[in-house]
């Protein structure tokens, strides 16, 4: 008989990081095929619809890149906070606020063709996202209120605020009472990056943000302080790194990224304010951040994968009639399997002979 034991790793291994994400994806696919069978579809057809069809046309690839844009941007922002163990799960609301604020600017300057309109909207959107996340930071710092709950609640409030605005103050007067705003002027829109697709230059912002995140995490003193705060709060206190500042910065960065992602949606594929701005990008980005091992480079890959699942879900619904719930289930499974596989990251699993077994746990 052989027994299994866990041994802490002396150093983090890059290979293990890849292994973890790879095994999470593999396990999700495995469980996914069972799901397809449950729905009476052949797994081959299912996977073809999910993961191959979207990549067969330029339009499909464009859709993947389109959905990757907000996921990438938001996940980069969230990962910085997660490393500091500040759990901002309300990026959805920060995205909505960014969209509302930028949308209000676009509607206000409806006829403007200024070159500064879009940059102005990006800045306003980022500030609005920061302000919304800042509420959670302020409540945590002054009242010790749990930021997980507050950011979540704020997301729901943001959604109601959006509903109110598009059915009231910001509704298009000539819009036959549809809950949507006027269409933005061209100056308020990102330009198209790839012909025959909807991919906009917002993708470039997301990629630049990824590089900035990489520099911030790896090279900046501030990034270092946040990581220390997450790994060992007592050490951060000893070194004089302010815990309050960690909370503020973590939430503000996440809010700014989500706010800009919101601008990217309303000034990109949507072109107006409406009830549905995001199909849960803010929540999916949490999964993207973890699946990318909270690493700026890893997140580029995981955001592409998550975008593919979004687009593939649409294809699978249209071509083989799988319900949209499958997309959500895939997302949940990815994170679940990622967490299960993560054991490999901090521990080596050793199969050993019981005679030389070193650790035995009486409780297991």
């Amino acid at each position: 008989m052989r027994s299994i034991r866990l041994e802490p790793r002396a150093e983090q291994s890059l290979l293990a990081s890849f292994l973890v994400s790879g095994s999470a994806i593999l396990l999700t696919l495995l469980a996914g095929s069972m799901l397809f069978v449950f729905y009476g579809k052949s797994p081959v057809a299912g996977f073809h619809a999910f993961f191959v069809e979207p990549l067969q046309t330029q339009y499909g690839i464009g859709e993947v890149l389109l959905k990757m844009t907000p996921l990438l941007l938001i996940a980069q922002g969230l990962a910085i906070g997660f490393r500091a163990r500040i759990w901002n799960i309300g990026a959805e609301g920060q995205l909505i606020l960014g969209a509302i604020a930028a949308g209000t600017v676009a509607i206000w300057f409806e006829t403007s063709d200024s070159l500064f309109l879009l940059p102005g909207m990006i800045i306003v959107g980022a500030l609005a996202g920061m302000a919304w996340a800042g509420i959670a930071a302020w409540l945590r710092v002054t009242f010790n209120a749990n930021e997980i709950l507050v950011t979540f609640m704020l997301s729901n409030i943001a959604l109601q605020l959006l509903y109110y605005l598009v059915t009231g103050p910001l509704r298009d007067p000539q819009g036959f009472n549809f809950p949507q705003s006027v269409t933005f002027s061209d100056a308020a829109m990102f330009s198209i990056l790839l012909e025959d697709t909807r991919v906009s230059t917002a993708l470039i912002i997301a990629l630049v943000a990824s590089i900035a995140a990489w520099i911030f995490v790896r090279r900046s003193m501030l990034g270092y302080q946040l990581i220390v705060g997450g790994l060992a709060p007592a050490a951060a206190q000893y070194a004089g790194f302010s815990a309050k500042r960690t909370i503020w910065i973590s939430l503000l960065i996440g809010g700014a990224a989500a706010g800009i992602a919101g601008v990217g949606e309303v000034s990109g594929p949507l072109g107006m304010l409406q009830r549905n701005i995001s199909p849960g990008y803010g929540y999916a980005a949490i999964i993207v951040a973890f699946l990318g091992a909270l690493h700026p480079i890893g997140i580029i890959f995981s955001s592409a994968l998550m975008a593919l699942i979004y687009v593939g879900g649409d294809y699978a619904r249209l071509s083989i009639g799988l319900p949209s719930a499958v997309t959500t289930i895939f997302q949940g499974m990815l994170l679940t399997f990622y967490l299960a596989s993560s054991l490999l990251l901090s521990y080596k699993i050793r199969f050993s002979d019981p005679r030389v077994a070193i650790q035995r746990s009486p409780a297991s």
Partner: protein
Amino acid sequence: MMDPIIFVLAGTLAAGTSMLFAAMGELVAEKSGVLNLGVEGMMAVGAAAGFVTVATTGSHSLGFLVGALTAGLLSLVHAILVTVFLANQVASGLAVGILGLGVSAAIGKNFEGTTVEPLAKLDIPLLSDFPVIGPGLFSQDIMVYLAMLLAFGIWFLMNRTKPGLIIRSIGESPAAAHALGYRVLLIRALCVLFGGAMAGIGGAYLATAYTPLWAEGMVAGRGWIVVALIVFGTWIVPRIVLGAYLFGAVTLLELSIQAMGLNIPSQLLSASPYIITIIVLAVISRNKTLISLNSPVSLGQTFKAGS
């Protein structure tokens, strides 16, 4: 039209019941040191499974049972992730919560918009004949009473029994409990499982008794309010009970204000439970001593045996 006082009393108890079930389950899990942020997903799964069972079999008891089992199964995933796989409790709760929302939508897909017969009201003899209070408090379906009974049972378990003492000790220091020979991981897993099952019953109550129709997303944030309720109640049962009914009253307020035709944007009313949650959370959390005296010390921390 019903007397408004009766309406408020009766409505409050019914509206608070689903949250009370889930909150009692979450309390037990947190007392053992495990945070479960997936309550929303577990309530959703319980609601869908419970609804589909009642719709196909007509049996409410079976509906609650299936709701509890399905949500329990989902919570088992969380339990295993945080005990065996040493996963971060926040991330794991979110993962399982998302999974639950997806599964719930999948289960309920073919029943969207359909209704079932609500759970029968049970008049308590004599008491229900009292004017106002009688029909207000003592003419409810059985689950309303069972939720109260459960709350009392949990209070008794936690404060007066050996198993409760063991759960509390694990919540304070899993390492010390382990050193005394208690099976920390197993007990934690069982507490999470119980929490999931109770969330499932709460969800099933929502879908088969409170508003007996199925609509995707009908749990509508209640699971998150439940997590917040534990903090409001500072891990003390009577306070959590009070909180659950207060939030029941808030949802009711929303309906009555709309019914009265006051000129308040409906979105503000829909947002009000969340706004109130944030305000109460801030007010209660401000008192750090209160929180630290009652919250389980090891809450949210991963425990690895044998190291």
